[in-house]
């Protein structure tokens, strides 16, 4: 077990190192000389160009720049955003908190709901609750996040007028006061995770319900709901738990789109604004941060599935 943990940890760190290199090469080396891109027409002016190049540290060789960028990351100096003109780290962390609120609330709603739906479908396999859920999940899983979000806005804001039109909010809106703005983004995130959790629970529920020990419990005359909840569900949840850990990474990708749909001030919309503003330090930081969270949730998923089921023998 300890060897496994250290191997996985080592692999994660190596992956992150390579990802950081990839991010650096893709954002700084490939596009060419940023000073001349930023200056445009004025790049003809040699002295101005040289001044900007040294200001952006472009006069250093790429390997030097990569190493100093990497060292800065560890020292908490994530650079300065070109667009917002503020240090990147506090900006990114503030947005991270917003996204985390969204993510945690979505998981708090989505996980129990997904387990419940999967459990019902698994117990009533091939009967109408199962068919209904399977078709529903197929529809939801086929809709891209932005299509789901758009439909939800039309239904809840336009037809029913229950919720604010679009969840456009100022960057400094206090999330505790603006709870109604959070409902639709959370609902969208819940809907995109639901199918995965429900399907996994369903198929493991089916497996468990066919086991001898369940039949034995049923034959002993124990009430059926008790059989399902006390005897079947705990065992059926094993595969679901690692799917939940993995779905954190999955939601994170989806969150980029969902935040854009609702103009939610999270990490995802910050990333997109960094792309459209060509804000390289900010782009590097957000991509790396999201990759880090993704790698961590993968690690947790691996460790959990290893802990819960030693038969998945990963060396």
């Amino acid at each position, binding site marked *: 077990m300890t060897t496994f943990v250290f191997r996985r940890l080592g692999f994660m760190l190596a992956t992150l190192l390579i990802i950081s290199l990839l991010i650096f090469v893709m954002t700084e080396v490939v596009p060419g000389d940023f000073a001349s891109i930023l200056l445009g027409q004025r790049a003809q002016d040699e002295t101005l160009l040289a001044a900007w190049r040294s200001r952006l540290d472009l006069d250093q060789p790429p390997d030097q720049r990569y190493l100093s960028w990497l060292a800065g990351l560890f020292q908490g100096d994530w650079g300065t955003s070109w667009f917002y003109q503020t240090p990147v780290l506090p900006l990114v962390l503030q947005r991270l908190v917003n996204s985390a609120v969204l993510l945690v609330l979505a998981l708090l709603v989505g996980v129990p709901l997904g387990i419940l739906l999967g459990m019902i479908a698994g117990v009533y396999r091939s009967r109408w609750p199962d068919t209904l859920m399977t078709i529903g999940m197929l529809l939801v899983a086929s*809709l891209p996040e932005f*299509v789901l979000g758009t439909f939800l806005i039309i239904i809840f804001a336009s037809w029913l007028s229950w919720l604010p039109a679009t969840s456009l909010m100022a960057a400094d809106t206090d999330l505790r006061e603006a709870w109604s703005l959070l409902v639709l983004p959370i609902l969208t995130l819940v809907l995109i995770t639901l199918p995965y959790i429900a399907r996994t629970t369903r198929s493991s529920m089916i497996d468990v319900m066919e086991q001898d020990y369940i039949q034995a419990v049923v034959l002993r005359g124990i009430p059926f709901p008790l059989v399902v909840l006390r005897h079947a569900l705990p065992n059926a949840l094993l595969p679901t738990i690692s799917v939940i850990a993995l779905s954190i990474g999955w939601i994170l990708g989806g969150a980029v789109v969902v935040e854009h749909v609702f103009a939610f001030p999270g990490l995802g919309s910050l990333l997109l604004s960094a792309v459209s503003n060509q804000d390289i330090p900010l782009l590097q930081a957000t991509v790396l941060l999201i990759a880090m969270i993704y790698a961590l949730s993968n690690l947790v998923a691996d460790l959990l599935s290893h802990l819960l089921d030693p038969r998945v023998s990963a060396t």
Partner: protein
Amino acid sequence: MNTSSSESHELHPADMASHTPLLHERPAASAVSAGQPLRGVAWFGRLCRYPPGLIGLLIVVLYVCLALFAEAIAPYSASEQDLTATLQAPSAAHWFGTDQYGRDIFSRVLIGSRDILLLAFSSAALGLLLGTSVALVAGYYGGTLDELLMRAMDMLMSFPALLLALLILATFGSALLNLVVCIGIVFMPRVARVIRSVVLKIRVQDYVTAAQVRGESGYSILVREILPNARGPLVVEGAIRLSYAILIGASLGFLGLGLQPPSPDWGLQVSEGRIFLLTAPWVSVFPALAIASLVIGANLLADGLMHALQP
């Protein structure tokens, strides 16, 4: 250490999550029927007798036909503006209404189908080609090469798909070719993982051993013995990739990283209609419905193929 450690990746929950069939039950990743050749049209008959599969096939074929004849069917051109008839509700003259420039949304959705289908089919094909090449080499030769290749694939996979696509497009710009290459690269590790497990099962079959004893070259065994026998899983994987390609392609379009205006890209149209969602919802709704129905069709088709090819 080599084979056993990489073997565990097949049970990686990420794969189970992303490849769990929607309707047809495939017991586990290991149930891929390796070495079972596709014979004649028997599988096609099975696909057509399985209602969800048939519906999916019909939807996808319908969209392909619409895309092929889009120019002929569309009542207006995709870029034709009519500033006297902006944001009009659906009517007999404009079935899906008009957008903020008075462009006919029905025509734009029809003509936009060409781009998304071209993008989806070519990026799925590229992903399949890249992934299968890696899988064949890694699965057949095994050893250190396998370990190296699959570790590299793991690293690519540890990058969220959308983020990888975003980074590539932000660097190289978003032309159709770049989008295809970018989605192809995103798919490569995912295809490689699935197909490699198939190759591992085929490589120990008698006919492969026989070919090895005959002294055939590695290349010839890969292309003539292993590849043809992996056709079933390849077709299924291709269909799965097709539906993901539509999803990713549309999402990138929506984020403004796909084809640029005034292109009638579906995702872009949904995005452009967002400001009119409360006053003129049809601007976004019809392209959104088009995306949804096409993805549902592709998903059902993938499901049906899985049912027909891996019974």
